[in-house]
C-alpha cells in the first residue's frame, strides 16, 4: 500500500511540476517528487541512497533552484500562453517514452497489456541479506573505491569543471580594479580619509584630537600648543 501511495504521489507531483502556473510551485513539486522517490528507495532497501537523495537533491540542488526561481519577476500574463503549440514534438517524445515503459513493466500485474516480452520481467533478489549483512554504505564503498575508482575520479573532475565554470562566469577582473583597504588607509593617514561636514579636510589640530579619541577615548589635554616637531612625530 505504501508503494502505491508513494508512487502515485510521485507521478502526480511530476505532472504538477509541468502544469503549475507559478514557477516556485513547480520547484516545490519537484522537491515533492524527490521526497517520494526517496521513500521508494527505502522500500527497495537502499536506505543510504534514500538519505543521499534527501541531502543532495533536496538539500542542495532544489534549494539552489529555489534561490534562482524566487528571484524571477513573474508576470501572470505570460503564464497563460499557448501550450498547445508544444503538442506535436512533446507528443512524439511522450509516446516514445511511453512505448519504452512497456519494455520494463512486469506483465503479471497488468495482464491486459498486449505485450509479448516475458523475458524482461523484474525479479527482485535479495542476495545480500542472505549471505552476509553488509550495510549499503559498505557495499558502495567496497565497489566505488576499488573496482570503479576511475568513474569516481572522473565524476569528481566533472564537478571540478562545473565549479571552475561558475567561478569564471561570475568573477570580476580583480587584477585591473583598484580596490583599497579602507581600514589600513585610515590607520596610516586619517587626515585624508576623514572629511568634515562642510567638505573641508581636518586641520592638524582636529586630526590630533581625532587620533586621541581613537586611541584613548578622550583627548588627554584640552588646550595645547601645536608645535610642528611634536605633531610630526605623533602622526607617524
Amino acid at each position: 500500500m505504501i508503494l502505491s501511495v508513494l508512487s502515485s504521489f510521485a507521478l502526480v507531483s511530476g505532472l504538477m511540476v509541468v502544469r503549475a502556473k507559478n514557477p516556485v510551485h513547480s520547484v516545490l513539486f519537484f522537491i515533492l517528487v524527490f521526497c517520494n522517490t526517496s521513500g521508494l528507495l527505502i522500500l527497495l532497501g537502499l536506505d543510504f541512497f534514500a538519505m543521499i537523495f534527501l541531502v543532495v537533491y533536496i538539500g542542495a540542488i532544489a534549494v539552489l533552484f529555489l534561490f534562482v526561481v524566487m528571484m524571477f519577476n513573474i508576470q501572470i500574463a505570460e503564464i497563460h500562453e499557448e501550450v498547445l503549440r508544444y503538442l506535436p514534438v512533446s507528443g512524439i517524445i511522450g509516446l516514445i517514452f511511453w512505448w519504452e515503459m512497456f519494455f520494463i513493466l512486469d506483465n503479471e500485474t497488468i495482464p491486459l497489456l498486449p505485450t509479448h516480452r516475458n523475458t524482461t520481467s523484474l525479479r527482485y533478489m535479495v542476495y545480500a541479506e542472505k549471505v552476509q549483512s553488509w550495510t549499503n554504505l559498505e557495499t558502495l564503498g567496497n565497489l566505488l573505491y576499488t573496482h570503479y575508482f576511475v568513474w569516481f575520479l572522473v565524476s569528481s573532475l566533472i564537478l571540478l569543471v562545473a565549479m571552475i565554470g561558475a567561478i569564471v562566469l561570475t568573477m570580476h577582473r580583480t587584477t585591473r580594479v583598484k580596490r583599497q583597504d579602507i581600514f589600513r588607509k585610515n590607520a596610516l593617514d586619517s587626515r585624508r580619509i576623514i572629511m568634515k561636514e562642510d567638505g573641508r579636510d581636518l586641520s592638524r589640530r582636529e586630526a590630533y584630537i581625532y587620533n586621541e579619541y581613537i586611541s584613548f577615548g578622550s583627548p588627554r589635554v584640552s588646550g595645547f600648543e601645536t608645535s610642528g616637531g611634536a605633531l610630526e612625530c605623533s602622526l607617524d
Partner: protein
Amino acid sequence: MIIDTTEVQTINSFSTSGFFKEVYGLIWIIPILTLILEITIGVLVIVWLEREISAAIQQRIGPEYAGPLGILQAIADGTKLLLKEDLLPSRGDIRLFSVGPSIAVISVLLSYLVIPFGYRLVLADLGIGVFLWIAISSIAPIGLLMSGYGSNNKYSFSGGLRAAAQSISYEIPLTLCVLSISLRLEIGRNDQVVHPYDSDLDSSTVDIVEAQSKYGFWGWNLWRQPIGFLVFLISSLAECERLPFDLPEAEEELVAGYQTEYSGIKYALFYLASYLNLLVSSLFVTVLYLGGWNFSIPYIPIPELFRINQMAGIFGMTIDIFITLAKAYLFLFISITTRWTLPRMRIDQLLNLGWKFLLPISLGNLLLTTSSQLVSL
C-alpha cells in the same frame, strides 16, 4: 537458484495482505507519543532555562510570576500565542505561507527518531543512524524559503534567503564531523585482525555510543576528535540559528527576517522549531561526543551493580535517561550562555566562517582521522 519468491510477491502486489501488517504496526504509536510528550516537556524546560540563565547573565531576575520560580512561563507564552489572531498577508502566497513553519517543525521532529536515551530506548535503531538527522535537517531550508517567499515582504524574503544560505553552508562541516566519528577510531586495536566482513562500521547511533563505553570518561569521542567537537559545536549552533549566527531572525537588521509576518500559532511553531532544534543538537552532541547514556566515571564499581539490571531493569533505564539529559544540559548551557555573551555575526562573516574556515578544517579532521586509523594509533 535462490529466488526469494515472497519478495517478488511484495513488490508485485499492490493491494493484498500488506494492509493488516500495517494495522498491527500501529502499536508503535505509544512510544512515539511518549517521545513527543518528553520532547514537549523538554522544550518547556529549555525555554525556562534560557530565561533563567539569561537573567543570571544580565543580573536580573527571570520569570517569577507564572508558577513557582516561573516554571509555567513557557506554557503562558504558548497560550498567549495560541489565542492571538492569525494574520495572513494579503497578496502573499497563502499556501506557502501556511505550510512553511510546519516543514521546519516536521524536519526537526523526525530527527528525534534516532536518538538513543538508553540501550533499548531508541525509536529506530537504523543502520544509517546519524545520517538520518543530517538528511532530514537538509529539508529545513525549504521551509524557511517558503516562509520568506510567501510573506510578500522584501525583508522577509531576504531573511529567508539568508537563513537558507546559512543552513546549507553549515550542513557540510556537520556532515564531515559526523563522518569522522562514524569511522570508529578504535584505540588499541593493533592485535586484533579486523575481519573484512565486520559490519559494525555503520552510522547507527546506538553503536556510536557503545563504542565510547569502554574507559568511562576517557572513552569519549571528545578526546578522540577534539577538532571535530569544536567544529560540530559551531556548526550546530549555526544550524539552529542561535546567536552568534542569528542574522536571519535579527531584530535590528531584518525586523525578524522570515518570521516578520507571522503571528499566533505559526510564530509559535517557529519558536518551537528553534528550541526543538537546539534540543536535538544537544542530544546529538551527547550521543556523538560525550558518550551517550554511559555512566562515565571510570573505575567505580557502582556501574557494575547496575549492569546486572542494565538490559531490562526500569531503574537502569531511568539512570540512562537521566545521564543522557544531564550531559545534554552541558551543551544547552554552553549554547544559552553563548547566545547572551557574543555579538551577532554579519552574513558575509557567517558564510565565510562556514565555507572558508570550518569546511577545510573538517576535511582536515577527516583526513587526520583516517590517517591515524591507518597507522593504528
